[in-house]
């Protein structure tokens, strides 16, 4: 047993007052969870402390919360580890994760314990209903429904079940592992800047159907997600959802798969997402390193030197970037020609070698999914000696029933 101070961000709308921090001292084994700590405080000190939970085993997805600023499940975070993290951050930065300037209540503040308080907050990017309970309807469930999260097969349904090759379902097992806890939504840095962003949970769910061989509206789904200004090209690639997800779904990786699939389908989106990707790839094929001026020009107005047919948005964006270029010229940042004029950037000395790599990769275009294949050496040595091959089963959770 060990003593911990948990510092909880609380809010009761009926009180008419703003949110505040309350500290509780709890006493439990370090291997127990942050949720166990909260429930102890609720049992012993304040029965009104509101937290949503059910299975306590990272299956039901009810207890999404922020622990020391990190979005996670309360039941999957050991309180001993949370204490180490709190001590580390306070030691390095001099402040705890509780930067929000709210009053502190509660006896825990005076009692004190060995370490720094473990900071517990409701999930981010969602309205708070009470204490740690958030309203998941507005930013989670609405967005899940937004991506049409059910199968859209064409033709008469078969007499019995749809029969598919098991191999063809492996690709979507990772996105199927989602338990709808909302931790990724809570952590999403794009949604923080643009609340309209469809978001990591819903887009991972979208891939679950885009990748499903039984679905017949893949094209329509991809068009929809690529053309929406708050769709797949609004993800800022920050990896927050990957670290937040308790089930290894890696929502950002699923968003990148959606982009890849949209690209393969040749979908030209009005956000210049596809144009940006193609421009980047072509420049590296031609030059080996990045020509930033050419990337800007080609992202907005592809083929401008040849065909000259940039769209209206492209023209607006190009004009918008003129002040940036002028400032750059003034400070000397872009004074040399090869930085300023698209296409003048020098080639790598052995660019033919780089081109050969493009040729090889385009022929194969293999995707190596670690979630599915796992790492070599994860098998026990005796299995390797016996010649047991790694199975094609997913290394993570078992697949759900495809809901």
């Amino acid at each position, binding site marked *: 047993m060990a003593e911990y101070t948990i510092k909880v961000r609380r809010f009761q709308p009926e009180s008419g007052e703003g949110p505040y921090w309350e500290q509780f001292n709890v006493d439990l084994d370090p291997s127990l969870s942050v949720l166990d700590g909260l429930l102890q405080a609720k049992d012993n000190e304040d029965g009104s402390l509101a937290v949503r939970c059910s299975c306590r085993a990272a299956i039901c997805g009810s207890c999404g919360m922020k622990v020391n600023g990190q979005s996670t499940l309360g039941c999957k975070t050991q309180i001993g580890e949370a204490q180490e993290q709190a001590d*580390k951050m306070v030691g390095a*930065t001099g402040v705890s994760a509780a930067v929000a300037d709210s009053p502190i209540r509660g006896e825990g503040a005076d009692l004190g314990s060995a370490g720094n308080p473990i900071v517990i907050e409701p999930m981010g990017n969602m309205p708070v209903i009470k204490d740690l309970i958030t309203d998941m309807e507005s930013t989670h469930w609405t967005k899940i429904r937004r991506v049409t999260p059910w199968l859209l097969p064409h033709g008469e349904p078969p007499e019995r079940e749809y029969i598919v090759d098991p191999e063809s379902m492996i690709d979507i097992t990772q996105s199927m592992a989602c338990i709808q806890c909302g931790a990724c939504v809570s952590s999403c840095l794009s949604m923080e*800047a643009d609340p309209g962003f469809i978001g990591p949970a819903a887009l991972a769910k979208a891939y679950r159907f885009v990748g499903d061989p039984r679905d017949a509206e893949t094209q329509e789904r991809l068009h929809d997600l690529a053309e929406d200004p708050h769709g797949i090209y*609004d993800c800022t690639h*920050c990896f927050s959802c990957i670290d937040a997800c308790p089930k290894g779904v890696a929502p950002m990786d699923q968003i990148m798969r959606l982009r890849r699939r949209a690209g393969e389908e040749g979908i030209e989106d009005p956000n210049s997402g596809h144009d940006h990707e193609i421009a980047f790839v072509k420049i590296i094929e031609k030059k080996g390193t990045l020509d930033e001026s050419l990337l*800007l020009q080609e992202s907005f107005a592809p083929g401008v030197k040849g065909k000259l047919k940039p769209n209206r948005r492209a023209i607006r964006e190009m004009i918008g970037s003129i002040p940036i270029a002028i400032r750059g010229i003034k400070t000397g*940042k872009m004074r040399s020609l090869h930085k300023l004029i698209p296409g003048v950037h020098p080639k790598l000395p052995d660019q033919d070698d780089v081109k050969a790599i493009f040729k090889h990769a385009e022929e194969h275009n293999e995707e190596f999914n670690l979630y599915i294949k796992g790492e070599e050496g994860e098998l026990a040595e005796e299995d390797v000696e016996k010649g047991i091959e790694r199975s094609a089963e997913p290394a993570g959770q078992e697949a759900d029933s495809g809901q």
Partner: protein
Amino acid sequence: MASEKIKVAYWPGCVSRGFTPELHGSMALVAQKLGIELVELDRANCCGAGVIAEHNQELADTLNARTFALAQQTGLSMMNICSTCQGAQSECQQRLDADSAYRAHVNEALSGQGLSYEKGEEGGWTNKNFLWLLVEDYGLDRLKEQVVRPLSGLRVGPFYGCYIVRPKERLGYNHYPDRDIYLEKVIEALGGQIVEYDGARKCCGFPVITMSRETSLRQAGTHVGDAIDAGADCLVTPCPLCHLNLDMQQPEAAKVVNRDLGLAVLHLPQLVGLALGADPKELGMAKHIASTRWVEERLTSGVAA
């Protein structure tokens, strides 16, 4: 350890030789002052910055395997100066290291060039950002000994860049759990004052600047604004792409968040260089968009005090 000479295969990346030339220059200067020998990989290619992996994962893995193989040819571990290079390359390296059959398949594409990427043994060949190298290999005590102009009185906000802090399991946090507090450690070692603010480990917004400009600039503007409100004199970043959004785009970001900004953003080698006594001009600070004059004034008054 203290007198051990460090020599690395150096991958400067694209942007340090493009839109942020001051990074490349300041790194060369600081390496010389610290006694770190850089063997530049001038034939290596772009890391793909996550964009090539989004297009064709095998292509990104092969391009980076080529860079790793070029580094391994020198017999040295590799150093980069860009969080995005670190993240994109670590991602490819993780896949290459996971499976010998996949590695052999990728190496097949390099065989015509006489190159091959070999998985390093535990503690063997590594690819580290300058920030990691500085703390883990050079050492903070040794760095402190080199400081001739402590950054006393300078209030510095760290800005990491997503690719160097997440995902934790890919970026070696199991071996080096403190990698997300190294900037604070370096600021402290140089005698500066740490400014903690909300955005230190958040996203600068750069990856969507061409696709979702408002989302992008709102991120940059919010973090710069938060740092100013927390009392920062400047930010420091180990990522030139973050620098583009936080510095070059700062006047545009100010319009989106509708407030005055004007906060200097330093590259990590520039901050180190200042403490080692280098002149702001030789560190290329005049090339920044957000003026660095205030930082220079703080430093001179700090020395006088």
